[in-house]
């Protein structure tokens, strides 16, 4: 026992020491950043270097990313080489980043959701000075992405592979029943009534339950959750849950159950439509033998206001070396440039991150033939992401989803649902 205690103490002191040096290191480099970025004006002093970029992109996405990166490597005037490292799926990437944050061996840049680094945001390089001094058109980037990347009180990244949640529906079924794409909560309810009556099916499902709740609250002019707890214990919150629970309790909406994914349910004619990520469209099959249908896509409905949840990661910087920081910034500028984001969006089905890109002739022509891109563009001004910059944010996502599942399974009334959800959220943060 004594031995263990001594070992523990030794370890604690070692780790304490490494903490101090880590903090000192990143603090110092942030200062260099400021100086370097301030000096950067017409002429930049960047030495040739190699930048490591960890990502979780596969298939055609990885292919497009590679093409863009090769272009940057060939064309940049500083001799910067960006090396792409595939780290598997998102959850693998998240685990790898956590492990490397603990070992203090993070890459120069990486793809990340904001909730990956809640615990090590001090290792993320603040990009404020870079943006201020060396990014001519920051305002051209969609507002929701700028907000998302500033939620920690500093600019932590630049938007990269962005998607949004849209309503995918069986247009053939809608046409047959004389239904149109929904625009309001009332439309949604009407569609639910008709499809249930005529087809015996639910009209709608949601891939992400916690995001569904937050979007509904925002659409109804309410707030969701912050570091102090649940903010929806209000009359408006109750009204929102009345709407949600009524949809489910009446059978207009349903949980995914044993179908695995709503895209499968839609493909098999087992549901009228569902709200899912715009990148998921490639997983909808419209021509299964005997079940062929035409796919419809529209923005998610609004109520008092519009609100649509975004998904997708940003590129964040961990580089400690001042020169690498500057080099990485060149790459981040390149990746978020109008040309790059248009190519990226057209190659992969992710969304452009700039207003000017949406309005370019090239992308407009592309949208003509892509109903998903059109719908995404329509709701682009209303995008939001769930706040991730406080401890417990990730846990709340899980708790809200599972609690909602349970409430819906139990056919709870709105008041019970509200009380249970508020308690569940506050329980995480207490």
């Amino acid at each position: 026992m004594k031995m263990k205690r001594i070992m523990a103490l030794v370890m604690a002191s070692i780790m304490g020491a490494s903490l101090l040096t880590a903090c000192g290191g990143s603090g110092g480099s942030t200062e260099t950043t400021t100086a370097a970025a301030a000096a950067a004006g017409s002429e930049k002093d960047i030495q040739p270097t190699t930048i490591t970029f960890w990502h979780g992109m596969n298939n055609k996405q990885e292919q497009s990313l590679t093409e863009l990166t090769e272009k940057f490597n060939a064309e940049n005037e500083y001799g910067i080489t960006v090396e792409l490292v595939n780290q598997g799926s998102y959850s693998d990437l998240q685990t790898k980043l956590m492990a490397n944050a603990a070992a203090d061996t993070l890459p120069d840049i990486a793809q990340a959701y904001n909730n990956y680094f809640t615990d090590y945001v001090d290792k993320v390089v603040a990009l404020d000075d870079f943006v201020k001094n060396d990014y001519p058109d920051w305002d051209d980037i969609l507002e929701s992405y700028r907000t998302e990347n500033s939620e920690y009180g500093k600019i932590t990244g630049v938007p990269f592979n962005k998607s949004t949640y849209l309503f995918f529906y069986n247009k053939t079924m809608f046409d047959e029943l004389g239904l149109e794409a929904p625009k309001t909560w009332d439309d949604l309810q009407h569609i639910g009534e008709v499809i249930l009556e005529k087809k015996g099916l639910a009209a709608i499902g949601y891939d992400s339950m916690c995001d569904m709740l937050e979007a509904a609250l925002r659409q109804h002019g309410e707030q969701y959750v912050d570091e102090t707890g649940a903010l929806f214990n209000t009359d408006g919150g109750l009204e929102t849950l009345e709407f949600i629970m009524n949809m489910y309790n009446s059978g207009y909406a349903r949980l995914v159950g044993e179908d695995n994914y709503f895209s499968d349910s839609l493909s098999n004619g087992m549901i009228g439509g569902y709200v899912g990520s715009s990148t998921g469209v490639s997983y909808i099959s419209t021509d299964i033998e005997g079940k062929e249908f035409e796919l419809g896509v529209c923005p998610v409905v609004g109520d008092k206001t519009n609100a649509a949840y975004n998904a997708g990661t940003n590129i964040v910087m961990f580089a400690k070396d001042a020169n690498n920081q500057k080099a990485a910034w060149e790459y981040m500028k390149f990746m978020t440039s109008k040309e790059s984001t248009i190519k990226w969006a057209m190659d992969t089905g992710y969304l452009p991150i700039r207003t000017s890109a949406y309005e370019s002739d090239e992308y407009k022509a592309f949208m003509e033939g892509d109903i998903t891109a059109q719908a995404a563009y329509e709701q682009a001004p209303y995008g939001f992401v769930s706040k991730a910059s406080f401890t417990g944010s990730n846990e709340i996502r899980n708790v809200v989803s599972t609690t909602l599942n349970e409430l819906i399974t139990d056919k709870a009334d709105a008041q019970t649902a509200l009380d249970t959800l508020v308690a569940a959220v506050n329980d995480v943060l207490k």
Partner: protein
Amino acid sequence: MNRRSFKGYAYLAPVLVIMLVFTAYPLVKAIFMSFCENYSIINGSYKGINLENYKDLFDDKLFIRALGNTTLYVAFVVPLSVVISLIIANLLNSHIKFQGLFQTLYFLPYVTSVIAIGVVWRWIMNSNYGLLNYILGFFGIGPIGWLSDPKYSMTSLIIFAVWKSLAFNIMIFLAALQGISPDLYAAARVDSTPRLRVFFKITVPAMMPIIAYAFIMGIINAFKVYNEVFSLFNSKAGPVNNEAITIVYYIYDQFYNNYKYGIAAAGSVVLFLLIMLFTMIQRLPGRIKAKKEAAQK
């Protein structure tokens, strides 16, 4: 030559060194972490050394549920799996045609993709068109929502897990059976002793060390169940709200999704103690028997 010497350590040295670095050290560190309030894996900082994590752990209804589920799981999966695989291994080792083919077939699940196994079992247990309900339908039972009704979550998980653990047990039992000296059976054959009697009087005692191994390893592995839950419920811990959550699932979630490293560590220590307790209880009959035998000699 004196056998009671330090020579044993020379044989153990490679294993000891590796285990010291890659198992003992992280284990001690995990135990330490479990006593650190608000421990951060990122920089090793913590608020204080106390029992907060354990308090939070036992205040968490989800952990209590995980404890109950895991214990239930162990209690059913281990004995069922050992008994069934013992029977199958014996059949596979008896004089049958196509012995090699059969043995290979029973080995295949062990190498089948985990994803495929999950997909297939979700199909078998589907409430609308699943194979299981189809078969039960002949007996006028069902349809049962194996994967959709929270009531059946643990039953489904146990059935799935027994299936999944068979291949491993069959393999080691076969190895043990093939190592039993035919001479042992020769006497029985001369007496034309009934097969069942041969099984219990000769086969089982000869295999006892391996059966004990299967039990102990079964208990240890069953207590650490995680992948089975994940693949059966399609990356969740149950159909609605964590009905089939297990201790390691809980630990994993706390560590990698909720970033509560200290609580995860405390959960691991509790699991550690629990397994220790169970393996000790399990070995008790063996010890008593050994003592009796020693006394008889």
